[in-house]
């Protein structure tokens, strides 16, 4: 179960907004997190706290394939992203770095910044403060397994070790 306070963003949040190209010579996730979403909201890196959840509209994560985008979100404390739809590379990268991503088109119009929500990844539901539940199709088992193992690095390590 993922519980957290929500930050709402709009449609087409691209990876240049999530982490601008000018910072990408730095491979430290901690340094990247200090700039996360700053071109969308300059205060965001200071405001975001551990466990917070992003809720957005369509096509979240479009643009560059930079894996630093989900990595910076994760290291800034973001525990999940709920969006109407995701750009495919961002979606894959998120799972691979261990950041849960949920496709739930209803969420954007029903959730406001500051509210607390609860996500059931296996059951496929989002519990709103009103007690109402939004449903979504849970990820396929093999992707949930990668998330549960903490991302593709531990997943592949186990595979290479044959365990």
């Amino acid at each position, binding site marked *: 179960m993922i519980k957290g306070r929500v930050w709402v963003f709009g449609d087409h949040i691209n990876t*240049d907004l999530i982490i601008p*190209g000018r910072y990408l010579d730095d*491979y430290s996730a901690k340094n990247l997190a200090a700039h996360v979403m700053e071109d969308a909201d300059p205060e965001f890196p200071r405001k975001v706290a551990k466990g917070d959840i992003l809720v957005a509209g369509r096509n979240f994560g*479009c643009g560059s394939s930079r*894996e630093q985008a989900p990595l910076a979100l994760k290291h800034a404390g973001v525990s999940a992203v709920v969006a109407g739809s995701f*750009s495919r590379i961002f979606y894959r*990268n998120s799972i691979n770095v261990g950041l849960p991503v949920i496709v739930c088109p209803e969420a954007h119009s029903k959730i406001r910044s500051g509210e607390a929500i609860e996500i059931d990844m296996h059951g496929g539901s989002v519990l709103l403060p009103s007690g109402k539940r939004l449903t979504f199709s849970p990820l396929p088992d*093999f992707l949930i397994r990668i998330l549960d193992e903490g991302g*593709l690095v531990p997943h*592949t390590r186990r595979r290479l070790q044959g365990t």
Partner: protein
Amino acid sequence: MAAKTFAEKVLSRASGKEASAGSVVTARIDLAMSHENSALVLKSFQEMGGKDIWDRRKVIMLFDHRVPANTVKAAEGHKMVREFVRSSGIPNFYDFRAGVCHQVLPEKGHVLPGMLIVGTDSHTTTYGALGAFSTGIGATEMASVWATGELWLKVPETLRLVLSGPLPQGTTAKDAILRVIGDLGADGADYMCVEFVGQVVDSLSIAGRMVLSNMSVEMGAKAGICFPDSKTEEFLVARGKTFRAVTSDPGAKVREVMEFDMSRLGPQVAKPHSVDNVVAVEEAAGIPIDQAFIGSCTNGRLEDLVEAERVLRGKEASPQVRLIVAPASRDVYIEASEKGTLASLARSGAVILNPGCGPCLGAHEGLLAPGERCISTTNRNFKGRMGSPAAEVYLASPATVAASALRGEIADPREVDR
């Protein structure tokens, strides 16, 4: 056997299973490209416990985003990757001089029709111009590809775009794809394999087709294909390659077929801050600009530089405008240099950069200050893309960017030409 789309055929062959749209397959990768983010790939590879690359001949690495190194951190990243390339004996490595990956790989004959190619760059879709199934992935999954040679992929549905023409004189591949993205939207082809067909596609050079395939990702496409023909054959034969084309079967199930009449299309411009914010050049004409950039994996090829030079020849760019040109590769640089194109552009006031991605992603070599405006032949105009988040980027063809550089404001190349 049921009729299959191009995507289903390539992914069936690569997975050894009957792949149909919507299913998830584990596919064997034919070619795996990474640029500077090889450093990030390497980090994940080592954390995974990876030791040997599954097939060294199928891996290509190069540097293009920050060349020559623009910061100490970038230099450290380059150094780390160079040492790994050397110690692991990777034969296909292009150091800082070769140019932009999406020009270098086709130019050097690494891309063949029907291949399954992945790259740690979203514009890896470019190789679809030669009929390869080619898509962008992240650094960590590339590490997994290095270790295992495999990747899970969802078999995409197919969106067939019929571009009927002919394109009017003065209208280019860039204008065509901007119009398509403007109509379909930034997620109009999400997760789909886009097939570009029709008279316009047939009439384009390989470089022009690369513009279509390159920018297909700007509408969310997983791959953007132009099927091989005599021009493809000529391109590959010149590189000593033989190949077998893969195409969609007649009657294969596609999600949708859409037709675009391009016979009256004029130059197009994508306004800030999204690629689908597209208008006819007349609607943007007159907007003052501070910088004009010609280059990138979209429009830094020889025919692009030649086209820009034709507009600028014998004239000087407006003193208000910083005109910057970056040939897409060393081969393009040498050819444009020998033809006199670069000298002519320099006489018109252009600063000629080394081949590379440079200003396109706001890495270095021409960042924008707050309040500044740039017209660019690149592929993204996102807020903050080329520098300050308070700057603006307009996207257009090389001819439109050249015409705008002359005038000091966004201009219709058909008018400047007159």
